[in-house]
C-alpha cells in the first residue's frame, strides 16, 4: 500500500528494469502454458480411456470427455488465480468462487431436460453433466489435474524465494503482524498507492529538468520536458521518487 511503498522505494526498480516484461518472462510463460495444456488434455484422456461408469454405461463419449476437460480447465484456472491474487477482499472472494459456481450453474442449465425439449438441436448435450459429474473418477481426475498444473508454479516460486529472493519478497513483513496491521492502519493510509509523494508542481515550476535555459513557460505546456525526466531505463538526474 502507499505507506509501505514510501518506506521501500527500491520496490520500483524491477519495473524500471523491465524484469517482469522481458523475453525471459515470455519464455517462462510459454513453457508453463505448454506444460499445462499437455496436462489438461492427457490426464483426462488417460483417465477415461477404455473406462466406463459405475453402472457400466459410457463415460468416454465425446460429450462427457469434453465436459471433463472443460471442468478440469476451469478449476485449474481458478486455483492458479487464487495463487496469484495476493490481496483477497470480499469482492475477490465473490468473483473467484462465483465464477466457479456460475460455470456449474450454466453447465447444468444448458444440459438440462427443459432446454432440450424447447430447442432439441441447439442443446444436444442433454444429460451429460448429470451422468458424468456424479462419478468419483471424474472428480479425482479434476483434483489431480489442478494439483499437477499448480505444483510446479508453487515449487518454482518458493524455491526462488528461498534461494534468490527479489526485492518484492524481501519487503514482505511476517504475515500475522501484517494482518493485524492492515486493519488498524486502514484509517490512516488508504489502499491507493501513490507513486509520488508531493506531486509535480514544485518540480515543474523549478527549472531543474530542463537541459538548456529556455524562456519561462507556463506550467501547462511542458509535456515533452516532463517525459524526458521520466526515462524508464533508470533514475534520471536530479529526480528521485521520494520528492527531495
Amino acid at each position: 500500500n502507499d505507506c509501505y511503498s514510501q518506506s521501500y522505494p527500491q520496490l520500483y526498480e524491477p519495473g524500471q528494469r523491465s524484469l517482469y516484461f522481458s523475453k525471459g518472462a515470455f519464455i517462462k510463460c510459454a513453457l508453463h502454458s505448454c506444460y499445462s495444456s499437455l496436462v489438461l488434455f492427457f490426464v483426462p484422456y488417460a483417465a477415461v480411456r477404455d473406462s466406463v461408469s459405475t453402472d457400466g454405461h459410457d463415460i468416454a463419449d465425446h460429450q462427457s470427455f469434453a465436459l471433463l476437460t472443460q471442468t478440469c480447465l476451469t478449476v485449474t484456472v481458478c486455483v492458479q488465480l487464487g495463487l496469484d491474487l495476493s490481496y483477497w477482499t470480499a469482492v475477490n472472494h465473490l468473483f473467484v468462487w462465483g465464477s466457479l459456481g456460475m460455470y456449474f450453474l450454466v453447465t447444468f442449465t444448458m444440459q438440462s431436460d427443459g432446454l432440450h425439449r424447447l430447442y432439441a438441436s441447439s442443446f444436444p448435450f442433454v444429460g451429460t453433466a448429470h451422468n458424468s459429474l456424479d462419478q468419483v473418477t471424474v472428480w479425482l481426475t479434476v483434483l489431480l489435474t489442478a494439483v499437477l498444473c499448480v505444483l510446479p508454479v508453487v515449487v518454482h516460486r518458493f524455491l526462488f524465494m528461498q534461494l534468490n529472493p527479489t526485492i518484492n519478497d524481501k519487503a514482505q513483513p511476517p504475515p500475522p503482524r501484517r494482518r493485524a496491521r492492515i486493519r488498524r492502519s486502514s484509517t490512516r493510509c488508504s489502499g491507493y498507492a501513490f507513486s509520488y509523494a508531493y506531486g509535480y508542481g514544485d518540480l515543474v515550476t523549478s527549472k531543474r529538468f530542463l537541459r538548456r535555459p529556455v524562456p519561462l513557460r507556463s506550467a501547462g505546456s511542458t509535456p515533452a520536458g516532463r517525459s524526458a525526466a521520466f526515462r524508464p531505463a533508470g533514475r534520471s538526474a536530479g529526480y528521485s521518487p521520494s520528492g527531495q
Partner: protein
Amino acid sequence: MMASSYNAKEEDGHHSGSVGPGGPGTGKSKKPDNTAFKQQRLPAWQPILTAGTVLPAFFAIGLIFIPIGIGLFVTSNNIREFELDYTGVEMSSPCFNCSQTYSWNNSCRCSVPFTLEQPFESNVFMYYGLSNFYQNHRRYVKSRDDSQLNGDKRFLTNPSKECEPYRMNDKMPIAPCGAIANSLFNDTLELYYVYPNGTKTAIHLVKTDIAWWTDKHVKFRNPAGNNDNLTITFQETTNPINWHKPVYELDPTEPDNNGFINEDFIVWMRTAALPTFRKLHRIIQKKDSLTPTLPPGNYTLDIAYNYPVRSFDGRKRMILSTISWMGGKNPFLGIAYITVGSVCFFLGVVLLVIHHKYGNRSSNAEIPN
C-alpha cells in the same frame, strides 16, 4: 497528465469550486465517499508463500494422495476383465473367412472359443470394442438430426441439411438420417458356456438398461401416434443405406425398444471421444450371491459377422468386465495418484532441507533504506 495531478492535489483537501458542474460556489465535490469500499480499504487476507504454509501443504498432499492412489490401484486390480479380438486377421483365426469375404446378402457366422481363468462375480457387462474408428471426426459428429430423433414430425420427412449425403435416398427422406446412424454396428454376439463333457448352454444376455436414462427418455423419442404400429409412423421414410432392415424392425417383439428408442441404436449414436472405444452391448445379470455369474471354464462366442472393418484397418473386440465403485478397469488414476503423492512428499522434504540451509536470508534489515 497535468490535469490529473491537479485533481489529485484537490483530493488532499483543497477545494476548488470551478471544477464541479454546479458552477462556482455550489460546486458538487468529486471526492469519493470515505467508505471502506470506495477508498479500497476493505479488510483483506494477504496470503504469501512462506515455509510455514507451503511445506505443510506439500506433506498434506502427499499424505492424502498416496492412500487414495493405493485404494484406486487395488480396486482396479480386483476388477475382472477379458478381451477377445475376433476381427479374424490371422489365417488361424476362426473368423478369417468371414473377414475376407463381405457380401451384402449373406451373413457370415463364426465361432471363437475362449477360456476364463477366474470367476466373474456380480453383474458382468459385455462390450463390443472398435479400434481405428474415428467417431470423433468433426463432420461425422455433426451428421445427425437431433430434432428428428426427438420425434419431431416436421424433421421426420424433412431432415436437416447436416445429414448430407445421408439425407435422402431416391427422393425419400431417410429416418434416422446422417452418417452416425448409417454406420450402426450390426454384429450379433451370443455367449455359450461349454461343460467339460462338451454340451453347451446359452448365457442369458439382457439388452435393456444399456443406454443413459436421459438418452432413452428425453433425447430419443419416437414420433407421436401409432406407438403399437410404428410401420405407419415411418411410412413416408426409408431406412439408411447401409441398414438391412428399417428402423421400426430393430426389435419388433418389444415396442419399448423399437424405433428410435432402440437401446443399441441409442448407445451407438452416443459418439465416442477416442479412436479406440468400447460400447455396452449386453448385461449378464448375477444369479445369486453364492454362485459366480461366469464361473471359470471354457466358453464360446458365436458371431454373426456383419460389420466390415478391414477396409480401414480396424479391429473388433468383445470385452467382458465387472464393475466397481470407480467404474471399469483403469490403473492410470491409481498409479498417477501414488506418483504425484510421492513426488509431493519428496519435494516437501527437499524444500525443507533447502529452507533450513538457505532460507532466513530474507529480512527487512537487509534492504538499505
